[in-house]
């Protein structure tokens, strides 16, 4: 809406009639000038009349417009965009401020960190409000955080809250924060102007939610998470896109460690992925282990892409090592370091539970030397007193029936990543095995095999696509393993996640496996001694057992690093967790671990990046158990343009600024209107220049007739 701050000057618009009056006046005041002949004048006038008329009209138009523009300029026109703001912008308003708190807001510009700039801008916005205006503040993080949830007129409190804000370690979802802010404004009573200020770095990622969910789709669903078409049309949105136009950042985004299960003496290979935002550049990547640099390489990264670099680490001692990959410090130092753990094991400890005669062959195979401490034999009744976390695999050889406590311990052990291998025996009937619910299949009965049918070739069942538990024993070419069966256990229906891995002959299951939690459970249909078969005597008995241990151990290896997140099952993050373990965050605070009721523990949230430690009950020193990093998805700083954002958001009243001063100017123009006087004066100047140019075009140096005809001193005419 156009209004005039100085309407008295509109009378000056009558001056626009002056050119016309002057023109008419001049036509009457002509001076009589004798001329030799009018014949050429008449002809010239005839030829030029249309052009002259047009030029005269143009000059009159320009002069009239020039005076109109000057008159308008002095009347101080103001363009207001607010419908209710016509009374000197004193309309009350409800304001929501949404501040992006993703870690990319820590990007350092010449004038400071973007987050600090946005906080200052938020303070300026609040200070610019009138006394009755209400304001609420939300922080856009992975989930929106209400700082001032209910709009308030206590601006000093709001300013204090804004100044106390700290940047988060994660990403931000502006769409959810804006939706929540709009929902809050919607709940307020009274008809007020509604304004939403989004203070961010302009990173396209934060707006991804708007882009993925077009306005029509977002209009459905929960009230608190949707932005209605009406809101998009009626609410005024201001965005401060304070980030760098061409951000420059390089950071390690992921590290892969192989092999997953590291034993002492093995060489570790690191595959480091480096993300790049900005132009192509050489980036130096360094690897430290326990504070000592173990490698440094320079790689070439293309613009806005990722590159990988490999490192080889050898000579790692048994234990858990804290490793760090770093890139050179840049404007966003938060993502320049990537931490992870390398767990190196001396050996794979095994517990064999069962009577002596059932475990003899197995113990002899795994621990041929009496001094080998990695293999322990115990009675089944002792399992409840043993800390199973110290063992990589548990063999139950003719150990059934088990008491209830032992069954619980074994099941928990398997779910937390342990390997349980079951060999049947004479001590228990088939029905006794059903107590252990984690078996791949429940035994149905035992069958004696006639001598003539005893010899059976072992056949490996190929792994199926999507099969969780797998088995792949490589055998020498031409080797056909054969066993002689005396007695076997028949199996019932396979449980969920189970598969028959080896058969004896064509149809007799020999070994079945099942994935349970993070662990594995294997069930043989023959005993572990020679009473049921010749299997313990064959050459492939030991390789099969070794592979089961290793395969299970590989499946239960903890990841070298995690990303910040919430509701993480603890057995996926912490190996062999027990509820009396104390896990501390990098800041020293205890990590909250909750029980969902049936002894399934989960981490409520991993709130900060760094190395988490565990103190076992009775242990002297805490050990590192978790390396947590920020999700490097946020390190992709590619900005989005104002037009793109307008398209993604679908906001109708959409104003963007690249710095706080421009934002405040836009706010002022929005509330008080934008003065058009300067534009009118520029137009007046333009018209004046045009008028001068057209009016004096005829006076510009033109070639005279004699010069054109080349008349010499003696009067000779030489026309071209």
């Amino acid at each position, binding site marked *: 809406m156009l209004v005039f701050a100085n309407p008295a000057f509109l009378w000056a618009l009558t001056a626009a009639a002056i050119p016309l009056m002057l023109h008419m006046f001049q036509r009457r005041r002509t001076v*009589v000038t004798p001329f030799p002949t*009018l014949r*050429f004048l008449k*002809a*010239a*006038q005839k030829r030029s009349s249309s*052009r002259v008329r047009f030029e005269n009209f143009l000059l009159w138009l320009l002069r009239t417009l020039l005076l109109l523009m000057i008159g308008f300029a002095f009347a101080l026109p103001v363009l207001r965009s607010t419908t209710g703001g016509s009374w000197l912008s004193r309309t009350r308003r409800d304001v929501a401020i949404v501040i992006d708190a993703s870690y990319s807001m820590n990007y350092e510009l010449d004038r400071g960190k973007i987050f600090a700039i946005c906080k200052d801008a938020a303070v300026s916005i609040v200070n610019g409000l009138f006394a009755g205006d209400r304001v609420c503040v939300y922080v856009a993080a992975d989930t929106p955080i209400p700082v001032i949830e209910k709009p308030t007129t206590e601006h000093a409190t709001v300013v204090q809250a804004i100044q106390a804000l700290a940047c988060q370690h994660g990403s931000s979802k502006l769409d959810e924060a804006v939706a929540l802010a709009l929902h809050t404004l919607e709940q307020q009573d009274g008809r007020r102007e509604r304004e939403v200020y989004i203070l961010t770095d302009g990173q396209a990622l934060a707006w991804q939610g708007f882009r993925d969910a077009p306005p029509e789709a977002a209009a459905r669903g929960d009230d608190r998470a949707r932005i209605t078409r009406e809101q998009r049309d009626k609410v005024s949105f201001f965005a401060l896109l304070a980030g760098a136009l061409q951000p420059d950042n390089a950071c390690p985004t992921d590290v892969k460690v192989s092999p997953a299960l590291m034993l002492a003496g093995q060489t570790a290979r690191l595959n480091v992925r480096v993300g790049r935002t900005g132009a192509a550049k050489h980036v130096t990547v360094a690897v430290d282990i326990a504070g000592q640099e173990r490698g440094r390489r320079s790689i070439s990264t293309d613009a806005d892409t990722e590159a990988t670099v490999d490192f080889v680490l050898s000579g790692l001692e048994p234990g858990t090592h804290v490793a760090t990959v770093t890139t050179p410090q840049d404007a966003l130092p938060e993502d320049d370091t990537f931490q992870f753990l390398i767990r190196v094991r001396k050996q794979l400890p095994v517990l064999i539970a069962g009577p002596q005669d059932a475990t003899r062959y197995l113990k002899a195979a795994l621990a041929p030397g009496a001094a080998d401490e990695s293999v322990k034999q115990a009675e089944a009744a002792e399992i409840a007193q043993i800390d199973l976390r110290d063992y990589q695999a548990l063999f139950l050889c003719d150990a059934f029936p088990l008491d209830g406590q032992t069954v619980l311990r074994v099941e928990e052990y398997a779910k937390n990543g342990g390997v349980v291998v079951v060999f049947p025996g004479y001590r228990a009937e088939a029905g006794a095995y059903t107590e252990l619910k984690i078996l791949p299949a429940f035994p149905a009965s035992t069958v004696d095999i006639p001598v003539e049918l005893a010899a059976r070739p072992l056949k490996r069942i190929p792994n199926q696509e999507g099969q969780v538990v797998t088995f792949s024993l490589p055998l020498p070419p031409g080797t056909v393993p054969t066993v002689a069966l005396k007695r076997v256990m028949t199996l019932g229906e396979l449980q969920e996640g189970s598969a028959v891995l080896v058969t004896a002959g064509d149809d007799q299951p020999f070994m079945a496996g099942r994935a349970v939690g993070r662990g594995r459970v294997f069930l043989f249909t023959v005993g572990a001694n020679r009473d049921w078969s010749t299997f313990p005597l064959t050459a492939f008995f030991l390789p099969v057992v070794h592979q089961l241990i290793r395969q299970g151990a590989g499946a239960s290896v903890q990841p070298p690093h995690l990303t910040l997140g919430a509701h993480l099952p603890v057995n996926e993050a912490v190996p062999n967790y027990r509820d009396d373990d104390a896990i501390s965050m990098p800041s020293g605070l205890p990590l909250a671990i909750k029980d969902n009721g049936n002894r399934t523990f989960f981490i409520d949230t991993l709130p900060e990046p760094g190395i988490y430690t565990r103190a076992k009950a009775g242990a002297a020193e805490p050990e590192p158990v978790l390396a947590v990093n920020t999700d490097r998805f946020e390190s992709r700083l590619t900005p989005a343009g104002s037009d793109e954002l307008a398209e993604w958001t679908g906001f109708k009243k959409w104003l963007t600024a690249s710095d706080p001063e421009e934002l405040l100017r836009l706010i002022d123009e929005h509330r008080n209107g934008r003065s058009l006087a300067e534009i009118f004066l520029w137009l007046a100047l333009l018209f004046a220049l045009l008028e001068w140019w057209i009016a004096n075009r005829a006076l510009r140096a033109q070639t005279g*007739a004699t010069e*054109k005809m080349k008349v010499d001193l003696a009067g000779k*005419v030489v026309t071209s």
Partner: protein
Amino acid sequence: MSKEGISAYLTPAQMSKLNRLALNSRYVVEGTLAGRHRSAQKGASTEFADHRSYMPGDDLKRIDWKVLGRTDKYYIRRYQDETNLRVYLLVDRSGSMGYTSAEHPTKFNYACTLAAALGYVVLKSRDAVGMYIYGEKMDAALPCKNSFNELNNALKILQGYKPAQGTAGADVMHQIAESINRRAMVIIISDLLDDQPEIIKAVAHFRKNLHDVIVFHTLDPVELNLDLKRGAEFEDLETGERMIADPRAMAKEYKDLMGQFIEDYRKACSEMKVDYRLVKTDEPVDTFVRAYLEERKRLSR
């Protein structure tokens, strides 16, 4: 006491600059006295012309004895006759010749001065000069004389005339062409602002009578370029007609038209072998005459 005659137009210094110049005809002329211009007649001079068969009564001294010795026939040697030049100055005093832009003389005054300068140059060469003054009609016809007193008298008569109201240049020129009965030089000093085809026909009439014709097309610089800054109501000097115009707006078209007008005259004169010269009234007469005569002398070599 106001100056009269040639002193009204030329200063002694200007006359001094014109002293050593001569106006030569490019064609043969027929004068009344012996002079230095080629005549159409055969007569006594040193320049051989041709042979003619002897006829009784011819002077025996003119028989070419060498030819008689070779051919055994009598031939008379004839020589080119040389005569003086008769120059007629046609001064236009039509209404349009009364125009002047601020600081320059009127075209008529300029034409008078040019006539005085040319007459002076002709008489200094011992040739004869005559003058015709015309406007709407023939105003004065002064015969050719090779006397400064006659030129002075003619200029006094010219001094007595003012630009007329109208013009009838073509008719008068035809009349003059009929009245000059022997080959002579005809110099037309005019702005030629008349019916152009008729004027060209009149000039052609002079050429038909084998006169050596020079046209001094006299124009004011403003008339050429329409270099006026303000709009005005223009009044035709000959018809009295008026029109309001903005000269700045139409300058380009005017110059194109004026250029075409001059070009038409130049072309027509070139085809008739008439020496056409454009004279601007802002140039000093003596400078122009000197430049013109020197160029003419150079071209005649």
